[in-house]
């Protein structure tokens, strides 16, 4: 698995290069020409990233999540979902590094063979950091009015979360 990921990128680069050379493209000049946009794009994203990341950081630091977790745990118990994965469900759409931290914490506390960790890892692997993707992608074209994109993204996260839970419970539970 890991080996596969290791080979894909070099292979992709090689195919692009060889195909370019075969079709007599001035590969070096064309590369530089394309690469020029990299910096401008990254700079354009900054305000959007700051807006999203600082709000999420404040939320995490405030301890609001723990309180929300206690509030919502009866509903989780009712559905038969382990309450320990609540932080993952909340943080996953917000930050990638944050959810890595939560997963690492769960592995540390429950061991990587536990059902909770399997559910959390499945959630981690099957959903995306919606708010970050939204900020970066719309930021890169300076769009503020995102219409229904956020709703769809959050709906996908909720679906992924429920699907991960019930699939893992029926497979490993």
């Amino acid at each position: 698995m890991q080996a596969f990921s290791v080979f894909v990128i070099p292979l992709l680069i090689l195919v692009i290069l060889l195909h370019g050379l075969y079709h007599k493209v001035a590969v070096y000049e064309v590369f530089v020409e394309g690469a020029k946009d990299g910096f401008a794009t990254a700079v354009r994203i900054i305000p959007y990233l700051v807006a999203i990341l600082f709000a999420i950081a404040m939320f995490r630091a405030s301890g609001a999540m723990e309180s929300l977790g206690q509030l919502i745990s009866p509903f989780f118990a009712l559905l038969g979902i382990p309450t320990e994965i609540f932080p993952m469900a909340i943080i996953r759409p917000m930050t990638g590094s944050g959810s890595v931290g939560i997963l690492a914490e769960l592995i540390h506390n429950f061991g990587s063979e536990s059902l909770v960790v399997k559910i959390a890892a499945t959630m981690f692997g099957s959903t995306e950091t919606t708010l970050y993707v939204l900020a970066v992608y719309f930021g890169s074209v300076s769009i503020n009015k995102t219409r229904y994109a956020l709703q769809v993204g959050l709906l996908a996260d909720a679906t992924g979360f429920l699907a991960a839970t019930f699939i893992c419970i029926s497979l490993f539970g």
Partner: protein
Amino acid sequence: MLNSIWAGLIIISIVFATGHDIHDELNNSYNNGHIYHLPYSSLKDTTTIRLHHHGYYFDAQIETGSEPDELLIPITEALPDSWHIIAQHQTSADTQQLRATLLSIDRHQQQLSFILPEVHWVKLHAIVNAAFDMAEFAVKLAIGLAGIMALWLGLMQIAEKSGLMLIFVKAIYPLLRWLFPDIPKDHPAMGSISLNMAANILGLGNAATPLGIKAMQQLQTLNQKKDQASDAMCMFLALNTSSVQLLPPVTLIALMGAGVSELILPIILATSTSTLVAVISARWLARRSR
């Protein structure tokens, strides 16, 4: 909706932090002003002292010279959690030791009295620091992205010029036509979208983002209202936020080790479900908004 979620996050954090801190103030959770009387066992030399507290001990330094004398407590795992928080919020910027004010040494009873620095409004400090730290980090993140962006954009440019992109797009065109009915058949956006999807499917997160950004910029050229997301963009975001993944992301592999292999099936099932829901709802919302 983004507006209300964004504002909500900030308002909730400030309200919670304030509430938490008021609760701490009322209960004096950090024992502000409390005088600790701890027995000590040995004065190794004239300045180092071994103190005993709730079944464990630590060696503290007595620092004379300043008025009043100070007790330097090294910050270790053994200290209670509240002391760690006090250490993080003490006025001295010392990260290695907790600076307590030494009141007296009773050599008869072998007892030492000291008082810890006062700590107030811990959560409010924490959210403000987190906000500033993240604002700084956002720039680092973006600058870090600049290099990877440039690399992939350069390679894409070659693939476009050589016609490789076209071959790739033709292969998955039937699917893309259904997902993006508004994009003309030979438009370059199709190429970036398909490469972005391929990178997602293969779990290549850091390749997917630059390719996705490129796709967004090409979609923007087709967009009628430049400040507003088009249906094609929303569909593209739906695909990306629900993450079509066949191989688990590299970070997950690193975290779970070999255990990740039995999770591949659940991940594929869960991600297919969420992607399906995202695509259908994006389709439905696009149609409804016409």
